[in-house]
């Protein structure tokens, strides 16, 4: 008798297991395997949408440049505080690869006291070590570099006080920094300008604890500057161009992306004004079968960017998308597709030059 009762209870349990009735997106077959090519949509519950009266700013790694371009193209108010110098990011900070760089950007820009920075040189021209590639041919003197930096700080202040949507694309955990000032560089000294000095410069790979703490600090600081701000975090799907760790570049890439993904999740869970957008997941998903990568298996093709933007538009741009609906909004010929790759500037690419 008791056995029968036990069996009946088991049947009941089996028929109401915890996964029964969950949304189709929570299962691999219905969420991934059997989704039409180009239609993978990993966004389930966005925390906010972007409206036509919002002011959007971006910063981050190379991939952030794609997002900036698409947001502008969609007709949203994209904040450009140094338009005469750049249309790539909201201010001319260049690529902000690490979270520590993003914190440094706030430190430098909002500090009442200007701090010393390294000014790099090459062929008689001078470069800001914290954004060494924003002026293609450098500047004429160290003084000009510092003067430009002062102006840049004001522009950065505007980014964080005037925008109410900030999209931050997390790119790397590996960085080079100064042992003297503690400054973090987007690129190793000596690659595009300056000279590498092991006594002065050191390699740093931020681990998950450090990166998470840095990102939470950054989100809090941005919110303190503007309590209306919404932050959209995303992880760049672009792999490392090179690693300084004594291991394979692919192993370093997976490490770096995993750390950034965990940090983004921690920030998302801590702050209700932070959301996570899965650019990384869309591009690198098995569903895309590698088709979104260029021949070097690293750069993202416009087709992949279009998929990211399709999902982004659908969930975040809503009815105010100015024609950018849930589908692609324009046809690009293959020639333009290739052009799309070369239009993105990556400091990292200089490592192999």
């Amino acid at each position, binding site marked *: 008798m008791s056995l029968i009762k036990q069996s009946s209870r088991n049947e009941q349990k089996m028929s109401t297991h915890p996964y029964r009735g969950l949304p189709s997106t929570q299962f691999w077959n219905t969420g991934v*395997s*059997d989704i*039409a*090519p*180009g*239609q993978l949509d990993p966004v389930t519950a966005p925390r906010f949408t972007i409206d036509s009266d919002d002011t959007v700013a971006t910063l981050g790694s190379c991939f952030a440049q794609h997002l900036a371009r698409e947001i502008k193209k969609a007709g949203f108010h994209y904040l450009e505080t140094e338009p005469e110098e750049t249309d790539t990011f909201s201010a001319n900070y260049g690529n902000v690869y690490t979270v520590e760089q993003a914190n440094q950007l706030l430190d430098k820009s909002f500090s009442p006291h200007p701090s010393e920075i390294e000014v790099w040189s090459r062929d008689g021209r001078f470069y800001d070590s914290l954004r060494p590639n924003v002026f293609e041919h450098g500047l004429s003197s160290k003084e000009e570099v510092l003067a430009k930096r002062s102006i840049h700080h004001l522009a950065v202040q505007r980014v964080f006080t005037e925008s109410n949507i900030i999209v931050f694309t997390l790119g790397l955990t590996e960085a080079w920094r100064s042992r003297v000032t503690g400054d973090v560089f987007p690129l190793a000294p000596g690659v595009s300008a300056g000279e590498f000095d092991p006594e002065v410069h050191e390699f740093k790979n931020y681990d998950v604890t450090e990166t998470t703490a840095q990102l939470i600090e950054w989100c809090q600081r941005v919110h303190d500057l503007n309590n209306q701000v919404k932050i959209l975090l995303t992880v760049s799907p672009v792999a490392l161009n090179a690693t300084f760790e004594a291991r394979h570049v692919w192993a370093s890439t997976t490490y770096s992306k995993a750390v950034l993904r965990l940090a983004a999740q921690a920030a998302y869970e801590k702050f209700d004004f932070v959301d996570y957008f899965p650019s990384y997941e869309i591009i690198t998903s098995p569903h*895309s*079968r590698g*088709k*979104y990568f260029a021949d070097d298996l690293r750069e993202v093709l416009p*087709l*992949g960017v*279009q*998929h990211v933007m*399709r999902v982004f538009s659908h969930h975040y741009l809503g009815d105010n998308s100015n024609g950018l*609906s849930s*589908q*692609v*909004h*324009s*046809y*690009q*010929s*293959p020639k333009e*597709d290739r052009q799309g790759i070369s239009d993105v500037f990556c400091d990292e690419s200089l490592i192999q030059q």
Partner: protein
Amino acid sequence: MKFRIHGNCQVGSVADSLRLLYQTEDVQSFLVDTSAQGLLNHFSKVHSTDGFIEIIHDSLLSVINTHPSVAELVPTQFLTIPSITFSAFQPDTQYIFNENGVVKNGLQGDWNSRIAITGYLRGLSPRQTEELFNLGTFQALGYLDDWNESAQFLIESFQKCGLNGTQWLRRMATHGVFMHGINHPSPIAIFDLVEQFASVHLPPADHKIAGAEQYLTDHLSHIVWPVYPEIAATLGLEGTYLWREGSQHADLRTFLESSFQHWDFLNLKNTQTTFIPSLDESHQAIITK
């Protein structure tokens, strides 16, 4: 192992796949006129022969099942294999018939453009019609959402033949555009179907074929209907507006101009025509908005 396949234009590739799988020359394929009279003629000439495994495309079944005179002639034992139809890549495909049969496009192919014929019948010029080939029109016509419906149709047709269409579709999705047109699959698409068909319905093949693509002849690539770029992009693919019919190629404008010219020649506006699928009013209204 000996096989005979009766069916549509896919029979050549089915036969090739069986030859490859079973390493046999004893495979005969018959491209059949699928009208009742056509099937009567075919099966009255081709008598069942001992030792052959008879395979019939599912597209013939509706006629066989509704015409006892045809059914009498069909081999008493046969296997049914699905004919692959999948329109998600080329949802603009339209068949037109008049009293003389299929109305051709400007390149003398059987497939027409639904947008083109609607523009033509509404009195638009080729240039005006060309402007309708854009994302807005495709969206309004549901062309961007055709995958799931196509997949469902295909899975059901596989199921009726005891096969797993989901498994097939997952494999095909790794090949990019696997259809030259709505019912012209690539050779690997047919090989994959035949491989599954064989594993379910036929004695085990002696050989496991690696890299089957290298051994297959493409019997259907002489006609290519493009995957329009706007549609392709939603499927994570690159598209084009380049038609192929034998040695002829045409871009969108040329395709439209030649088609309009041909339809003028046929006096199509004043001819009784049948459309498959039907050109319903809503589609026409959207196209000519």
